[in-house]
């Protein structure tokens, strides 16, 4: 359903006397490729600064990508054609017609190249829910006004019809009519997040980015929201990209997981496979570090030392090598590619095979 190819997002760091020249770049997302299948929940996990949030927003074009392609709902034969043509262009063996054909296809299908107008139609199909529900609601708008906005913009309805729709939405998540005229600060965190979710699904999108939707919430509220998200996924046949740093939520929510570290995907696998058989040391250390609410199983942990390095000057070679307990000299020299080690299980670590056996 969603195909991401070689996506990059570099944020310039301005320097020089007039703060105008880019002296360096934060490589928030660095050459990331993956796909999201229809109806699945792909979880994007990683520590802060790994680029998962940037990636989510770049896909929705809330942040402009530096380079790369994003294909949404593109027929597979067209994707194949684009791939073939791109390969030809790369090898400089494409004819003029083929180059033109590729440009045309890219303009039609590649979201990364859409203009404002082209994006507006896309907005109905792709939505986002943010981490902090309080700051993602306009404090000067009542809930009715906030929820009316998407309907006003995309569907030409009469005022009363909009109001009916809003009321219907509110009721579907257990909120009442009197809540319509209240302001965001009068609600609890869980209620606010439900309102944000409503705003996102009011246009009946097909794909949603959930950017840490529960990390600002308490566990009992988190459970309510997660259940709601699952229910909505079933009802509306939604596809989720679930961004989080909390691995326990991942196991509950997702069908597939991609682990990111400093702008790169280091491991990708179906959820159960990843949890039962984590291969990349980065994934392992993340899993080990999760505190488990079972005091009897208090384990000897693999606690990795040090902090996440700066994404401005990421370590050479494998970016995790500075913290990796298994790192060899080769790790600091060569960047390991993401390879499929078993069906659907991709790892970017040359030692993965050895670790698998140990």
């Amino acid at each position, binding site marked *: 359903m969603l195909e991401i190819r070689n996506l990059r997002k570099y944020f310039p760091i301005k320097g020089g006397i007039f703060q105008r020249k880019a002296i360096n770049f934060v490589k928030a997302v660095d050459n990331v490729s993956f796909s999201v299948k229809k109806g699945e929940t792909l979880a994007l996990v990683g520590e802060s600064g790994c680029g998962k949030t940037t990636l989510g*927003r770049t896909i*929705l074009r*809330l942040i402009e990508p530096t380079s790369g392609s994003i294909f949404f709902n593109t027929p597979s034969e067209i994707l194949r054609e684009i791939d073939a043509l791109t390969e030809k262009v790369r090898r400089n063996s494409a004819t003029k017609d083929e180059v033109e054909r590729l440009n045309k296809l890219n303009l039609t299908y590649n979201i990364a190249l859409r203009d*404002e107008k082209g*994006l*507006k139609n896309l*907005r*109905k199909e*792709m*939505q*986002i829910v*943010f*981490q*902090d529900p309080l*700051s*993602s*609601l*306009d*404090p*000067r*708008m*009542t809930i009715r006004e906030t929820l009316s*906005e*998407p309907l006003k*913009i*995309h569907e030409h309805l009469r005022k009363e019809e909009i109001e009916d729709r809003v009321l219907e939405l509110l009721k579907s998540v257990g909120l009442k009519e*009197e809540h319509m*005229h*209240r*302001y965001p600060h*009068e609600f609890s965190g869980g209620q606010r997040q439900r309102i*944000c979710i409503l*705003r*996102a699904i009011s*246009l009946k999108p097909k794909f949603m980015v959930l950017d840490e939707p529960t990390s600002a919430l308490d566990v009992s509220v988190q459970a309510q929201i997660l259940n709601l998200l699952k229910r909505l996924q079933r009802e509306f046949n939604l596809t989720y990209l679930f961004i989080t740093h909390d691995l326990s939520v991942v196991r509950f929510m997702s069908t597939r997981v991609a682990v990111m570290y400093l702008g790169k995907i280091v491991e990708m696998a179906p959820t159960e496979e990843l949890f039962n058989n984590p291969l990349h040391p980065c994934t392992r250390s993340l899993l080990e570090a999760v505190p488990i609410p079972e005091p009897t199983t208090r384990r000897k942990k693999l606690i990795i030392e040090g902090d996440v390095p700066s994404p401005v000057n990421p370590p050479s070679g494998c970016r995790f090598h500075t913290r990796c307990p298994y790192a060899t000299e080769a790790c600091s020299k060569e960047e390991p590619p993401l390879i499929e080690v078993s069906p659907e299980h991709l790892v970017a670590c040359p030692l993965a095979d050895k670790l698998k056996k140990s």
Partner: protein
Amino acid sequence: MSLKNWTKRHESQLKELRYTGFLIRRNMLIMTGFIIVGIMVLMGILAPYIAPYDPTDMQFSQRLLPPSAGHLLGTDDNGMDIFSRIVYGIRLDLLIAITVISMVGVFGTILGVFSGYYGGKLDEITMRIADIFLSFPYLLLAMAIAAVLGPSIFHSIIAISVTWWPIYARLARGATLSVKEREFVEASRAIGESNIYIIFKHILPNIIAPVLVQATLDMGNVILEAAALSFIGLGAQPPQPELGLMISVGRNFMRDYWWVATFPGITILVIVLGFNLMGDGLRDLLDPKVRRSLL
């Protein structure tokens, strides 16, 4: 819609309003500010009914009379009643201030919001122009402009406005930059709202509070500046009842006829004080953080 229905729909707003009332009542300084400004505005509106004499009616037989029952605050060198002139002076100065602030406020704010929201070249150019204006002392620049245009109230309004807009442009730009980063703006973009819609629907309502505070504080400042221009002869012309002009005239007789300059002076002081107190109070009332902590 019935009243009951209306109150139900606006329950939240009414609650906030009641709370605001409570906060105002609790704070003596804010109260004082509101009362002073209230009285001044009323005096300005009702000037024809309050003033006992025509403010420009010269009675040369009654020159330089001290305060008495007949002339509450005495008369000036042209035999005009000072109390009446002060009442009309308040009206005139308030009008000048309101005109300047509403022009400057709207223009500066919109400019600031756009340059803050879009950034880039537009921002760069606007802010550099604003810097140039801000690098002159206000009064000097206003004086230069007023001098070129020629002395009159209208020209002094223009002169002040030209020097004043950068304050609002800067303020609005700064506020926009911080509001722009909030997630609800991003959410609006994700919904597919256009930039113009976002600016007017989401950004403006959220930056209006600091602008209002600044506008209130500036009411006093503009009155001071208008009075200053008149004082040096570049604003209102005699016999117009303008407070700065009245002080300027009265200054010549200060030693023997103190009331001619003193009463207009006190009036200006009180007006400016009133607006400053009110502005400071509004800042506390409108700042969401302070507002909650005042509980």
